[in-house]
Each structure stands twice: as C-alpha cells, then as structure tokens.
C-alpha cells in the first residue's frame, strides 16, 4: 500500500512555508517597522500637533482658525502658488524645447548639452539664489536689467527656481520624448500631414504623460522648496519660509505644524493626480516599434543649437558667478581674489560642516541604496504575501509627496517626544541619515523597481526549482544584473544628500551641522561670500564624486558585466 493512503491531505489549504518564505515575511515586517518609524509616526505626531496648543491641550481647529485670520501668514499660500505656477510654466517650456533638441533633432554637441543640463543638480538650490544676488542684487552687475524691480522677491525666486528644477524637467520630458515609434511619423508623412499637425497629433500626445509628470513634479519642487526663498525671497513670504520662521524664529511649533499641513495638502493632491493620470499610461513602444531617429534639418538644428547654447550660458553664468563670489575679497568694492572666505570665521561654522555633509551623503548612499534595493526586491519578486507587498509598495511612494521641511519638522516632534526611546538620536548623524533616506526614498525605489521588472520573472522560479536559497540568487544574480541601477541610485542619493537642506535644518546638532545648512546660516548673518564658498565646496565634492563615480562604475561595470558584451 502506498504511504499516501495513510496521509490524507486537506482538500483546501495553503502551501507550506519554506525558509525563504519566512525570510520574506521577516523582511516585510522589518520594512513595515522601518516606515512606521521613518514616516508614519513622525507625520502623525506633526499633524496631531497642529490640533494642540503649546501646553499640549487639544484645541481642535483653533490653530487653523488663527492661521487663516492672520493675513501675514495666509498671504503665503497665495505667494507659494504664484511662484510655483509661474516657475512651472517657464521651466516646462524651456525644458521641453531643450529635451526636444536633445532627442528629436540632429543638433551638434548633444552629449555636451546633455551633461550641461544636469549641472544644476550638483549644487544646493541656495547657491543659485546667491549667484542671482550677485548678478541682479542691490549691487549686482546687471541690476539695471530689472528696471527698478528688486531681485529679492518673486522675481528672484522664480529665476532661481527655474534654474534648479530645470534638470528634473529635462530628465522627465526627455524620457518621454526618447521613446517614440518612427512608424507613426512615417505614417503621418505618407498621409501628407503638415509638420505642425504632426507635432500636435503625434509628438505632443506621445510625450503627454511625461509632460504631466514633469509639470506636477516641478510644481511640487518649487512649491515646497526652502533654500531659494530663504536666500532671495526678501520680504516675500512663502509657506516653506513661514514654517522655518515659526519654528526657528518664534519657537511656535504648533503654528509650524499648521503651516506644514497647509503645505502638505497641495503636495499630496498633486502627487495623487500624477499617480492617477500616469496609471492610464500604456506602453507606446511595443516590442516591434522602430525607435525614432531624427533627420537633419538645417533651420531647426541651428536654432535649437542656439537655444541650448543660451540655456547653457545661463547655467555657466550662475555657477561662474557663484564661484567668483566665493573668491572676491569684498564685492563690489574690492575685487581682488582671495581664498579667505574658505576659512569660515563665523561662530559655529567651519570645515567640519563640510565633513559632516560628506559623512551624511556617503552613509545615505551606502545604507540607503541597500535598504531601497532590498525593499524593491521584496515588493517585486516574492510570489507570496501579495497584500503586504502591495502595502509596502504604496508606502514607498508616499515620501515623494512629503516636502522635506515638513518631514524634518515631523521628525523634530517625533524625536523630541519625551516617551520616544529613540530620543537620544536627536542631533546625531544617524537621524540626518534616516530623514534623508526617507526624503529621497521614492525616486530611488522606482528606479530599483524598474530595473527589477526588466529581469525575467522566472529567475526566482528556476532558483526555487533548483532548491537554491533566495538570498544566494539575490547576491549571485539579481545584484550583479541590476548593478547599473544600483550605481544610479547611490549617486542620486549622494548628490541629493549633499545639496539638501530642508529636512535636515530642524534636526542637526551642534556637532553635526552640514555644509548646506551652514551656508544658509552664513547668508543669514550677511556673510554671503562665505556662504557662496561653502556652497561651492558642495559643488566641488559633487563634481569630483560624480566624475569618480562615472570612472569607477565604468571600469567596474566593464569588469563585472563582461556578459553584456557580445
């Protein structure tokens, strides 16, 4: 008699869990815990704080009532919307033309222009503001161009915002324009369609989703940015600077929380719109599509070249002025060059800030990349626990909707709560690293998920059939194959950690102040040249690391990825 006659299996049931299934479950729980601590609890405490007074009594909507009845405060809502909208319109037009030139024309020096478009990413947003002050400020070189208007205010905020959000917009629109089937254009041409009509019926619809995403992302970036309005906003208040003033200036944490919620809501709504709209996106590029290859057109190519050159000159003018500002003895009276601004004489500021920046950025790049990639793997690859994995995926998308300043304030409430056992982390590098990883989690996560989706879905099935543990396949197959994406994530995290101020500005301690925050403080104290010098240190570090990264990863990839070569 066969043994099965004695072991009657249940008619319905679930697969038994093997060791890998337990590993996955353990990790999913760990990630749930991570997001509770890193995002959910802090945000909850901040929102809850906006309903309490200074003595922690529940006061309902009183704080909001007060906020909306203080014109000085609620005026900022209008101001924020105004600068964000105008900046978005301008940057989208410029970025679209630039991306179009890169992807759809035979313009010369495309490689150079591609790199130049990304240059603003290497510097903190406040650096652009400082450079604008030197160009157009009260003692600026080109002050007269403003015809009596002041750069301190909406004009300055908009110009600087356009400049620093430009690379983001070019990246997103460029991706949308890069993917196009040339057959659509050939069909249009055969049907004798005019160029303009082709543009509005083929080109624009094809890039529609990339454009919508770019519009929303740029809007959120400007709407929630702190560095630019802090330096160049003057008396023009926006929501982000209000939070800072309420918390740092007036120690009015309750009102800080209220403004944060006011800032958070539009960001979340915009983010939700983006998710809903882009979910409808269907792949325009089928496997059989033939990629678009532009044909030479003298007039278009030349005018696009001129346009890109102008944009690039503007980029160089901003960066160059910042560099010059950090070297001039006393603008505009004594123009002799000096390195004295790099000695950072101001109280509480020095090279150690720069070293702190490096520690934070390296830690975020290493730890963050690891966490993000493992998290994306958990979301994408296991077969079981689909609900838990979808929940993690959803939570991983949320940080994008949370402005850095809001996240920082939320952490402040969280870490300073008397009952929090993690309170000892206040002012440490660890809390700066945690907040920065969380702040930049979403884009890194999406990059990792995209890379993982491109891997054959059956690798895991094959491994299981060969009885190879998941961890071994992860290290042996998944990580090497995804190495380019892993490097991309690490450099993304490094550059952003170096240049960000928003989440960190509420969380640093006396010994952990980072360079970008120090630059803000020096600018506040009127030491603009030293602020420029500190910001330039960040730029140097970013350039060096970016180049090193390119060289090392190029070599490493060449060695590790011999299999990519035929």
């Amino acid at each position, binding site marked *: 008699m066969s043994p099965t006659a004695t072991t009657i299996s249940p008619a319905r049931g*679930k697969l*038994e869990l093997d060791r890998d299934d337990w590993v996955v479950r353990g990790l999913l729980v760990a990630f749930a815990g991570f997001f509770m601590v890193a995002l959910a609890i802090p945000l909850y405490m901040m929102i809850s704080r906006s309903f309490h007074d200074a003595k922690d009594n529940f006061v309902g909507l009183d704080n909001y009532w007060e906020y909306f009845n203080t014109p000085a405060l609620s005026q900022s809502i209008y101001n924020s919307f105004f600068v964000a909208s105008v900046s978005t319109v301008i940057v989208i037009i410029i970025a679209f033309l630039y991306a179009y030139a890169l992807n759809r024309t035979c313009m010369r020096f495309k490689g150079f222009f591609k790199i130049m478009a990304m240059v603003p990413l290497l510097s903190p947003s406040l650096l652009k503001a400082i450079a604008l002050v030197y160009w157009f400020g009260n003692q600026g070189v080109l002050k007269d161009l403003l015809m009596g208007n002041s750069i301190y205010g909406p004009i300055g905020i908009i110009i600087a915002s356009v400049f620093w959000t430009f690379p983001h917009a070019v990246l997103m629109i460029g991706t949308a324009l890069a993917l196009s089937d040339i057959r659509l254009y050939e069909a249009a041409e055969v049907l004798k369609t005019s160029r303009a009509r082709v543009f509005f019926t083929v080109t624009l619809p094809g890039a529609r989703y990339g454009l919508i995403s770019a519009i929303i992302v740029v809007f959120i970036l400007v709407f929630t940015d702190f560095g630019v309005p802090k330096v160049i906003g003057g008396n023009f208040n926006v929501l982000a600077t209000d939070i800072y003033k309420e918390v740092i200036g007036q120690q009015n944490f309750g009102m800080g929380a209220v403004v944060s919620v006011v800032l958070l809501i539009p960001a979340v709504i915009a983010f939700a719109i983006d998710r809903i709209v882009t979910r409808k996106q269907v792949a325009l590029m089928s496997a059989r599509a033939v990629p678009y290859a532009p044909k030479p057109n003298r007039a278009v190519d030349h005018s696009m070249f001129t346009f890109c050159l102008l944009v690039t000159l503007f980029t160089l003018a901003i960066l160059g002025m910042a560099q010059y500002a950090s070297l001039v003895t006393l603008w505009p009276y004594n123009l002799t060059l000096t390195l004295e601004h790099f000695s950072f004489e101001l109280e509480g500021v020095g090279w150690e800030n720069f070293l702190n920046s490096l520690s934070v950025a390296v830690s975020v790049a290493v730890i963050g990349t690891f966490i993000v990639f493992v998290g994306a793997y958990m979301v994408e690859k296991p077969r079981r626990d689909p609900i838990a994995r979808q929940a993690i995926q959803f939570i991983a998308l949320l940080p994008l909707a949370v402005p850095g300043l809001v996240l920082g304030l939320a952490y402040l409430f969280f870490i300073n709560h008397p009952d929090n056992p993690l309170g000892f982390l206040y002012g440490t590098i660890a809390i700066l690293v945690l907040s920065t990883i969380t702040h930049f989690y979403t884009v890194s996560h999406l990059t990792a998920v995209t890379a993982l989706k491109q891997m054959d879905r*059956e*690798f895991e*099935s*094959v491994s299981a*059939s060969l*009885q*190879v543990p998941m961890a071994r396949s992860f290290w042996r*197959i998944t990580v090497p194959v995804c190495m380019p994406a892993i490097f991309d994530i690490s450099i993304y995290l490094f550059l952003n950690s170096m240049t960000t101020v928003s989440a960190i500005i509420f969380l640093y301690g006396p010994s952990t102040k980072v360079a970008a925050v120090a630059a803000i403080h020096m600018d506040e104290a009127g030491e603009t040249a030293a602020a420029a010098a500190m910001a330039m240190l960040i730029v140097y570090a970013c350039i060096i690391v970016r180049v090193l990264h390119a060289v090392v990863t190029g070599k490493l990839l060449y060695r590790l990825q011999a299999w990519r070569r035929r």
Partner: protein
Amino acid sequence: MDTGNASVENGYLVLSGVTKDFGTFRALSDISFDIGEGEFICFLGPSGCGKTTLLRCVAGLETQTEGSIHMSGEDISWLPPSRRDFGIVFQSYALFPNLNVTDNVAYGLVNKKMASADMAARVTELLGLVGLASHADKYPGQLSGGEQQRVALVRALATSPGLLLLDEPLSALDAKVRAHLRREIRGIQDRLGVTTIMVTHDQEEAQTMADRIFVMNGGRIEQIGSPGEIYDEPATPFVADFIGVMNFLPVTVGDSTTVNCGDLQLQCDAGGFAAGANISCAVRPEDVLLDDVGDGTRDGTGDGTGNLIETTISDIEYLGSFVRLYLKNPILGDAEIRADVRKDLARDRGVAVNQALRIRIPAESIRLYQTGD
C-alpha cells in the same frame, strides 16, 4: 468525455480533483489524471485553456484552490516549489545572463554540496548531452536561441529531478530549429527516462513528441490519448476541430445508418443517436474523395455506397504536397467543405475555380458529435 480515472496507488504523478480559481474565474476545474514514471506528456490546448496554470500547480508556482497532487507516492499538494522534486524550462529560457554556460548549468549543483571535481564532470557530461561542450565559457547572450534553450534544458536536468516540466519551451524559436530540438529533447528524455510534462499550443509539437496528449479547453481536460487516438478518434468536437482540420456539417439523424443534411442523405454509423436528433457530422479534408466516374468511387473500382455530393469549387489553396479545395453546395448554405487532394491528382483532374466537382465521403470516415455544448 474521457478524463482518465486517477488512482493514487498507480501513477508516478497523480492529480485528483485539482481546481484553481482566480477570483471568480475558474482556470482549472476538477482535473484528475495519473502519469506513469518515464512518460512524456503534453498538455495541449489554445491559449487561456489552463495548461500553463496546471503545469504551475504541479510545480507549486501556483497553488490549487482544491484538490491534491501526489508524486512518487508522496503528497506534495501543499509543499512549496523548493521542496518539490522537479526541473523546469521556461519559454524565455530564464538563463542567468551574468553567469556563463557552465555556471548556469552548475547553479543547482553548487547547492547540493557536491565536490567541485564531480560538479565539473557532471556539467561536462550534461553539455556533451546537448552538444554544447565547446560553449562552456560563453555567456547566454552569446548563444543562439536554440543553444540557450539547450542550456536551460540541461540546467533543469542537472540535479536529476524526478520530473521535468517544459513550459512552451520551443515557442520562441524559428521553425527549423524547433523541429530539430523536438527530436533532440525527446531523444534526451528517452535516454534519461525522466518523467516529463510539456505545455504547448502547437499540435504538431505535441503529436511528434508525446507518449500521451492531454487536450485541454476551458480549464478542463477534453481528452487523454496517444497522438494517433487524438487524431483518429477525437472524443469531442473541440478536439476534432483543434487537432488537424475538420469539416463540420449540421445533420439530423435519420435511422441508425443514415444522417440527413437537408436533402442530402449520408450513410454512416448513427447507432448511438436518437432518430431526429440534430447533431454534427465531422469529416477530415483528406477523407473527402473526388468522384469523377459517378459510381461512388474515385476511380470506378470502389463499392459505390453513395455519399456523393455535387459541389462547385469556390477557392483553391496550394499547400505544398497537396491542394485544398473549398467546395460549395446550396444545401450547405454559406458553409464550405474543405477537401485535401494530392497535388498530382489535382493536376491530372485540372481543378479550377467555379468548376463543378462531385465528391464522395466514405461512411467509415464520418464521425458524429452531439451539438449544443
């Protein structure tokens, strides 16, 4: 309908009452069969018939909603894939792109804590089996599709699994390579004697490779049989239609030896049906004979039992060694009868569109099916 009577005691792989629901959609309903050790089985059916889902249930990559799976006497119904004893080859090959051929094949062996010399010998032996010994150091990207498929095959066989699962392994290859690999896979399977299940939508593939074919449709097994049985004695209209080409005529049962299609009376064995029942009459195109002489035979030497139909040729297709004629008759309305005629016969006869043609359908070539389901 013949779905086989599964008994846990006999087979090497035994499924009983396996059902799989995706939400409200029933992908598999009440699948039961048993497979003997060393058999080569094909799950054959159109896309969406549940054949891949069934294979994945056997592998543990999907979990059946109900039912049990036994392999080699052991209940594996609720075991995770890692604790089942199978090797699998996917349509996409799923070769690890960053590992060379040797490392791909050895991937499952490393885990078995095998001595490295034994492992190397095993890999060499396996690569020899598929004639890829000289490609041991190449990466998958440097191999052709057929070579990649062979590597995937020996990777799955490396650990000597008790069951080999092939999920449309040849679909991504071009026709010539596919025909060659069919024989090669079958040859290796014969030599190693490994019980094998292959999923395919290609009836030719199933018929050339399988010991037994499980024809599936709508989440059910329609028929289990040898390639010959499936073709010659299709159990259901679906099988008759899916395997090869089949003419269907709507008919009414006359008596136990005749059916009527309008005014047309056809002799055949209608014993199993009630007189007056509306049923379906099926004839393979190659069983439709030309009848020039008019005595009920093609060449004047036959028995002349009738079943003559006067038709007009409406279209002609040249299909290599034979010619397919599309034949019309007012009784049939819009329906056409397809007749396959050897090329030389067609040429001698000088077939042309709009020509009148008398055909004969031998009584023994007619199969009758219940209609309406």
